[in-house]
């Protein structure tokens, strides 16, 4: 049953989705998420599910739109340039209040960029995935086990709030192997979907799923109603994990792959006597503002470590309302920060040279 097995991140994401009750996957090939789609193509036919390789990322996300509208659990996966192509469809899914899970195994950008790991789609995921006023639930795993656990949570929360969720992973997590435990054979949560387009069977009025309103007053009302839902999510769904923050005078904030490096650097800094801890956001939207605010009175400085030119740092500054200095260290273009590099930053922050 539930024993630990060695699995690649991308494959673990796929298996976790299947165990979460997802029987529909629509995708398009792109590195470095390839193994996810390949796993789905192997598994879906065996469980009576659908794997479909679409003609484009655009088509794939619109197939997700259709399947989600029909009321089933559905997922797509891609990597950075592919997510840009899916942006239109994601905006429609959000506008139609439909649940879906979208995986982004990030690579370096912009443009075609590279195929090495990156975290430079943070802004895209949390602030501007597509046109219009909307948000996604964004989960950031930093281990293969977290990838597994967050996939089911992403499906459950997507259904609960009728919102698309994104797993914001990266090429390092997608490609690495770690031991994981996947709960097999449990019954995923089932949500009532009276809004689904499954045929009215002459027994109810027709259901309409639509994001168009030519009347501005109505459209504003729709958007305000959606933001009331977002307010509930902001209140209830912030998640983060803390390491050695109890007595910390300095706090490093990092998510995903860069949080692994940051944690190693924090351990080394502790050995050198620096009172430093790590705060690892699990949800990037909603950003764990409450957890950060709680740290302000006891924290002298914050350090943000990202695999980008600095994107999440904005949310850290906003969360603490700039009450403390926030320093930054980042590598980009597919470079992973090294432990000595981050340790140096911690030492400088702590006044230890």
């Amino acid at each position, binding site marked *: 049953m539930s024993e630990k097995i060695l699995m690649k991140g991308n494959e673990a994401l796929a298996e976790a989705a299947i165990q979460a009750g997802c029987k529909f996957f629509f995708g398009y090939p792109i590195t470095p998420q390839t193994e996810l789609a390949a796993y789905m193509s192997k598994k879906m036919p065996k469980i009576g599910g659908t794997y479909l390789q679409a003609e484009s990322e655009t088509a794939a996300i619109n197939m997700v*739109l259709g399947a989600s509208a029909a009321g089933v659990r559905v997922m797509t996966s891609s990597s950075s340039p592919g997510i840009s192509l899916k942006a239109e469809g994601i905006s429609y899914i959000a506008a139609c209040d439909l649940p879906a899970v979208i995986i982004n195994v990030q690579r370096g950008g912009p443009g075609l960029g590279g195929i090495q790991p990156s975290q430079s789609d943070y802004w895209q995921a949390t602030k501007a995935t597509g046109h219009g006023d909307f948000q996604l639930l964004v989960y950031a795993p930093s281990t293969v086990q977290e990838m597994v656990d967050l996939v089911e949570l992403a499906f459950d929360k997507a259904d609960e709030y009728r919102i698309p969720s994104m797993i914001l992973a990266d090429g390092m997590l997608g490609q690495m192997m770690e031991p994981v435990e996947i709960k097999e054979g449990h019954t995923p949560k089932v949500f009532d979907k009276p809004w689904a387009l499954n045929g009215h069977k002459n027994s109810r009025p027709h259901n309409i799923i639509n994001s168009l309103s030519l009347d501005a007053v109505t459209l504003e009302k729709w958007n305000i109603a959606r933001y009331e839902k977002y307010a509930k999510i902001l209140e209830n769904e912030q998640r983060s994990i803390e390491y050695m923050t109890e007595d910390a005078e300095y706090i490093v904030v990092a998510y995903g792959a860069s949080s692994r490096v940051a944690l190693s650097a924090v351990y080394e800094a502790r050995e050198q006597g620096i009172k430093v801890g790590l705060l690892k956001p699990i949800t990037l939207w909603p950003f764990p503002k409450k957890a950060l605010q709680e740290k302000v009175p006891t924290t002298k400085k914050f350090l943000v470590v990202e695999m980008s030119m600095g994107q999440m740092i904005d949310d850290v500054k906003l969360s603490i309302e700039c009450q403390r200095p926030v320093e930054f260290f980042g590598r980009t273009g597919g470079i992973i920060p090294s432990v000595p590099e981050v340790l140096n930053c911690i030492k400088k922050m702590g006044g230890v040279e």
Partner: protein
Amino acid sequence: MAIVFKKPHALTDIPFHYCAGCTHGIVHRLVAEVLDELDIEGKTVGVAPVGCAVMNYDYFNCDIIEAPHGRAPAVATGLKRAMPDNVVFTYQGDGDLAAIGTAETVHSATRGENITVIFINNAIYGMTGGQMAPTSLPNQVTQTTPYGRDVNTAGYPVRVCELLSNIDGVAYLERVSVDCVKNVIAAKKAIKKAFQNQIDKKGFSLVEILSTCPTNWGMTPSESLQWVRDKMMPYYPLGVYKDGVKGDRLK
């Protein structure tokens, strides 16, 4: 008293917003009559386009979704794969189906998606105010071809039925018109067949309907119907372009 004429059940009571002389209304009614006659309204899911027919989700009584521009066949693919026993149709104009959505059209056909596509070809973008469509005729004056469509710079009109006729996933292609009673009757027969094919799991079925746009053509309704006959039919000949089952040429 015997009822000899009534509104199809598959149409709601919401009044159409279409311009006088536009043939969308006729085609809506034909689709609705077919849903009634095949008794499938309760298991049908429609996909509305972006274009003049965008608000047809208010007019058809079946479950229905409004798709992003051109993506209706991809949305229909998701709906149909999720619920294979439901009947799924798209209703699209020429800009939606043959310009921005060309890839979705061609590849849903290549996959032999078991869906029904109702394609309105009126040789112009209606909703945005009369720009050149992929199906605008050579020398046709539009807002964006004010000197007439110059095929050397703006390219040639797309003949959708001919284009799709070489694709093995296709079961059925027919081009019809709604310019006169005889052709309206033939159009209904084609639409019915395109739905029946889906019920019989034959593959991708598309009916192209030559239609009018008096407002953007700058004509009266009757002049528009004559323009369909005089100008469109020679470039877009009516007829059956494929009638079989997907993959039948490979057998």
